[in-house]
C-alpha cells in the first residue's frame, strides 16, 4: 500500500525526488546525473485532484481502520503520552514534533464559537458537561494533523515544503467540503455528534484540537 501510493503521487506531481528509490541515488553517484528536478511545485488544483483520488480508498480507509476511541486515548495520553503515541499515533520521522492521533467519538456539543472563520465546537464525550475535545468546524481549518496522521505520506517524496503544505491544504479542504460544509451552524449547543478525525499533540494537557474527516449529527 505505501509504496504504490508514494510512487503514484510523486510521479503524478512530476516531483522527481523519489524517496528511497535506488535509481536516483545510482544516477547521482555516476557523476553528472541531473536526477532530481526539485523545486517544481504542483498547482493546487492538481493536488486537489490527487486528494480526491485517494480520499476514499486511502485516507478514509486509514481513518476507519486506525481511529481509536477518544475515551481510550485521553487517559492513555494523560498517563504517558510517549507510550500512547507509540501505540495509537503516528509521528513523521526526525521532527521531534507532535504525535498525530486518529480518533473517533460520540458526544454532545457543550460550547461553540462560530463568530470566527476558524469556528470550533467543544464536545463532551463523558457526560460531565465539560468539553473533552475541540472540534474544528471551519471554513478555516488550522494545522496539518490530517496529513501528518497518515503514515503512508512522507516529506522526502515531496519536492519542497510548499508542495507538502499544499497536500495538507487540499486534505483539509476536502475534509471541510465533505464533513463540515453541510453542517447547520445555528444553535449547535446540545446537539449530539459523531466525529472521526485527527489531532496533533506534543504534551499531555495540550488542547485536543480535532480536524474531522467525518462529522455527523445523530438523533438524541
Amino acid at each position, binding site marked *: 500500500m505505501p509504496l504504490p501510493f508514494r510512487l503514484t503521487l510523486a510521479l503524478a506531481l512530476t516531483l522527481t*525526488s523519489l524517496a528511497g528509490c535506488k535509481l536516483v541515488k545510482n544516477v547521482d553517484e555516476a557523476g553528472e546525473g541531473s536526477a532530481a528536478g526539485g523545486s517544481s511545485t504542483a498547482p493546487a488544483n492538481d493536488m486537489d485532484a490527487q486528494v480526491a483520488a485517494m480520499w476514499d480508498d486511502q485516507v478514509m480507509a486509514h481513518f476507519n481502520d486506525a481511529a481509536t476511541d477518544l475515551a481510550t486515548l485521553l487517559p492513555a495520553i494523560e498517563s504517558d503520552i510517549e507510550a500512547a503515541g507509540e501505540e495509537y499515533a503516528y509521528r513523521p520521522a*526526525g521532527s*521531534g514534533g507532535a504525535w498525530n492521533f486518529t480518533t473517533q467519538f460520540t458526544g454532545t456539543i457543550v460550547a461553540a464559537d462560530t463568530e470566527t472563520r476558524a469556528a470550533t465546537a467543544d464536545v463532551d464525550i463523558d457526560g460531565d458537561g465539560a468539553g473533552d475535545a475541540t472540534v474544528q468546524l471551519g471554513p*478555516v481549518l488550522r494545522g496539518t494533523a490530517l496529513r501528518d496522521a497518515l503514515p503512508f505520506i512522507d516529506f*522526502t517524496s515531496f519536492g*519542497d515544503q*510548499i508542495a*507538502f503544505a499544499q497536500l495538507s491544504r487540499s486534505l483539509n479542504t476536502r475534509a471541510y467540503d465533505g464533513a463540515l460544509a453541510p453542517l447547520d451552524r445555528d444553535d449547535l449547543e446540545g446537539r449530539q455528534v459523531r466525529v472521526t478525525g485527527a489531532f496533533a499533540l506534543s504534551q499531555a494537557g495540550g488542547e485536543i484540537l480535532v480536524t474531522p474527516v467525518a462529522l455527523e449529527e445523530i438523533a438524541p
Partner: protein
Amino acid sequence: MTFTRRVLLAGVAAAMMIGQPMAASAADLIAIITPSHDNPFFKAEAEGAQAKAEELGYETLVLVHDDDPNKQSQLFDTAIARGAKAIILDNAGADASVAPVRRAKEAGIPSFLIDREISETGIAVSQIVSNNYQGAQLGAEEFVSLMGEEGQYAELLGKESDTNAGIRSSGYHDVIDQYPDLEMVAQQSANWSQTEAYERMESILQANPEIKGVISGNDTMAMGAWAALEAAGRTDVIVVGFDGSNDVRDSIKAGGIKATVLQPAYRQAEMAVEQADQYLKTGSTGLDEKQLMDCILINADNADALETFALTN
C-alpha cells in the same frame, strides 16, 4: 574534461573508503558553514553545531558564506582541502548549493544540511529543514486573531533570492487569504534588513494611515518596522515577526511586537552534528534524508522561556 574525470575517480576512491565505518578520532574535523553571524540566528546555528561537535570530540572549522554561492563554493574547496570528515551547512541557495554538496560527496565528505533544503535529494546525507511554511501558518493564525479577522495590513518580504522569503510569504497568505475582511494594502521587500524595513514602514505608513497590522518575513525586519511605528507614534499597529530572536522576545515582553515564530536553530544544528557523528561511526544515520522540524509560536505567554533560539521548559 580530464580534470573532471580525475576528480570523479578520486571521488569514487574516497567514497569507497568512507563507505567503511570508521571511528572518530580527536583529530577529525567537522566544517560548519553558515550565512553571516551578523544575524544572530545563524550565529546560534554555528554555535550549536560547534559546541556539539567539540563535545563529541571533533575539531571544528567555522566558516561563513554571506549568502554568496561563489564564496560557499570556495569554502567547500577549503573544507575538502583541509580533510574535513563532514560538513554541516546552512546553504546559500537551493539550486546553487547542489554542485558543491555533490563535489564534497564525490570527495568522500558527507554533508548535513540545516535550516533550508536544497533542490536535489540523494547527495546530502541529511537535510534537517525548518518547516517555514508551518511556522508561517502559525504566525499568520496569531496575526489574524490579533487583527480580529479584519482590517488593513502590510507585509514585509525577505530577500527574493532566499527560498524562505517565498515559503514564508506563501504560508502567511495560505491562512490570511481565507479571511476576506483582511486587506493587504502594501507588500514590499526589505531584504531581511532592519534599516530597509524602517524606511519601507515609514513610506507605507504615509500612504496607508489606516493600517492596522504588519506581518514580517523575519524578526530583523519586524524590529525595523516597529522602530518606525514607534517613531510615528503608531504603537497601536500589530506587528508579527519570524525567527524567535532575543530582540523580538524583549520587544514582546515590553508590549511592542506581538508575536514571532521560533525556528529551533540551536537544537537543529546539534541534531545535524549528532547525525554526522552517527554516520561517520556506523555508515548510516538511520533516518530519512529530509526531516522537517516544526516551528513554535512565541507570544507573551511563552516569551520568557525563549533564549538564543531555544525554548526552555
